C-alpha cells in the first residue's frame, strides 16, 4: 500500500480530490510556525512523498477545523494531519514523553491540555 493509500484509509479522505487552491493554508491560524504549509502537505502526500512525515506541520495542527470548513472540495485536512501522525504513533514512536515535561508545568497546565496532548501525541 502506498503512503497516499495508507493516509486515505486512515483519514477516510480522498487526497486526489485536492486541486491545490491553497485555501487551507491561507486561513490556517498557525501557518507561520509550520515548515510546510498544509496545502503542500496534501500535495506531497498525493505523491506518496514520505519525507513529509518529518515535517513539523503534522504536529502543529491542533484540529481547529478552520481549513475543513473552508475547503471548496470538502476535504478534511485535519483528518489528513491526524492520519500522518497516526502513521508515526502506530510504530510506537511517541511525539512527547511524560517524563520530559517539567514538574512545574504539571502544576501550571490545566489537566485538560495534558490529556488532549497525550491523546494526540502518544500512541
Amino acid at each position, binding site marked *: 500500500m502506498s503512503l497516499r493509500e495508507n493516509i486515505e484509509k486512515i483519514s477516510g479522505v480522498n487526497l486526489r480530490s485536492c486541486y491545490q487552491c491553497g485555501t487551507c493554508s491561507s486561513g490556517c491560524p498557525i501557518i507561520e510556525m509550520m515548515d510546510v504549509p498544509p496545502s503542500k502537505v496534501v500535495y506531497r502526500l498525493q505523491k506518496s512523498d514520505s519525507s513529509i512525515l518529518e515535517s513539523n506541520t503534522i504536529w502543529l495542527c491542533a484540529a481547529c477545523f478552520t481549513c*475543513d470548513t473552508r475547503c471548496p472540495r470538502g476535504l478534511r485536512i485535519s483528518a489528513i494531519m491526524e492520519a500522518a501522525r497516526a502513521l508515526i504513533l502506530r510504530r510506537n514512536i511517541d511525539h512527547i514523553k511524560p517524563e520530559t515535561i517539567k514538574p512545574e508545568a504539571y502544576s501550571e497546565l490545566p*489537566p485538560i491540555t495534558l490529556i488532549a496532548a497525550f*491523546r494526540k501525541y502518544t500512541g
Partner: protein
Amino acid sequence: MINYQVKELAYYPGCTLKNGAAELEKSFLFVCDALDFHLEELPKWNCCGTVFSLQQDVLVYHLASVRNLIRAKEASKKAIVAPCSICYNTLKQVLDFLRNNPDSLNKINEFMFEEKTKFSLGDVDVLDVIGFFRDVIGYERFVKSAKHRLNGMRIAVYYGCLHSRPRNAASCEIEMPNAIEQLLGQLDAICTEYPMKNECCGSYLRVKDPTIPLERVRRIVKSASLNGAELIATLCPLCYDNIKNLQKRLEREGSGFKILPVVYLSQILAMCLGAPKEIYNPKSEPVPAFSS
C-alpha cells in the same frame, strides 16, 4: 426552538468542570436554576474522550463518548447538555460519526457486549450552551428574568473553535458567529466585533510549545482591545485558561501588553440573573461593571 421537557435533559459536567473550572459549573447551574431549568446530572458519566479521534479505521477512541450516550439513554434522557466546549464537540462529533457510519455503531455495540443497553441512532442528542440557551430556554426568558442589565459593558465574546466548527458540530454561524451577541445585546451590553472571535487559541499545543498559544493569545486579546472591548467572555474552559494565564506572561514581557479580564459567558448571565458575588466573581478580580 426545540421543545424538551426539563426532565428529558441531562447535565453532563465533564472532568474539567469538576476540577479546574468550578466557576463555570457554579455559574451555569445558577443560570439554569434561575430560569427554572433544574437539570439533573447524568448518572455515572465518564470522560468524553477529550478530543474527537479523526482516524476512521480505529473505533476504540469513540467508546468513552458512546458510553455517556448510553448512560443518557438508560436515564430516559433525550439530550445531553454539555457546558464544556470540548466535551460538547467530542460528544457531538462522535454522534455524527455514528450517524454516518451505522456499521461502526453495530461494531461498537458488539464490542461493548457487557453494556446492558445498546445505543441506537436518534436516542439522544447533544447540546452546547448556545443551543441550550437559544433554542431550549429561549433568549426571551433571559431578558424577562434579568434583574440587572449590563449597562453598556463592552464585551468581546470569544467563541473559540468548537462551537462553530466543524460544520456538523456547529451551533452558531461558522464564520463571524453572532449567536451570543444577540443575547448580550438584549441585556444592554455593547458587543465588540473583532475578527479573532472564533480563531484557535493554541489549545493543547501549550504542552508541546507554549510560545504558540502565547502568540495566539496576544493577537486575540489585542484584536479585542483595539476594537474597544473591556472584557472577554469565553465559553470554553481551555480557552479561558489559555487566555487568562498566558496574558500574565505577555504582560511580564514588558512590551506594553494590556491585560483584559476574562470571564465565562455564564458568569455574566448569572450576574444578570442576580447571582451572589461568589458565583459571578469568586476570586474578586477587578472586572468592569461586576464591581458595581
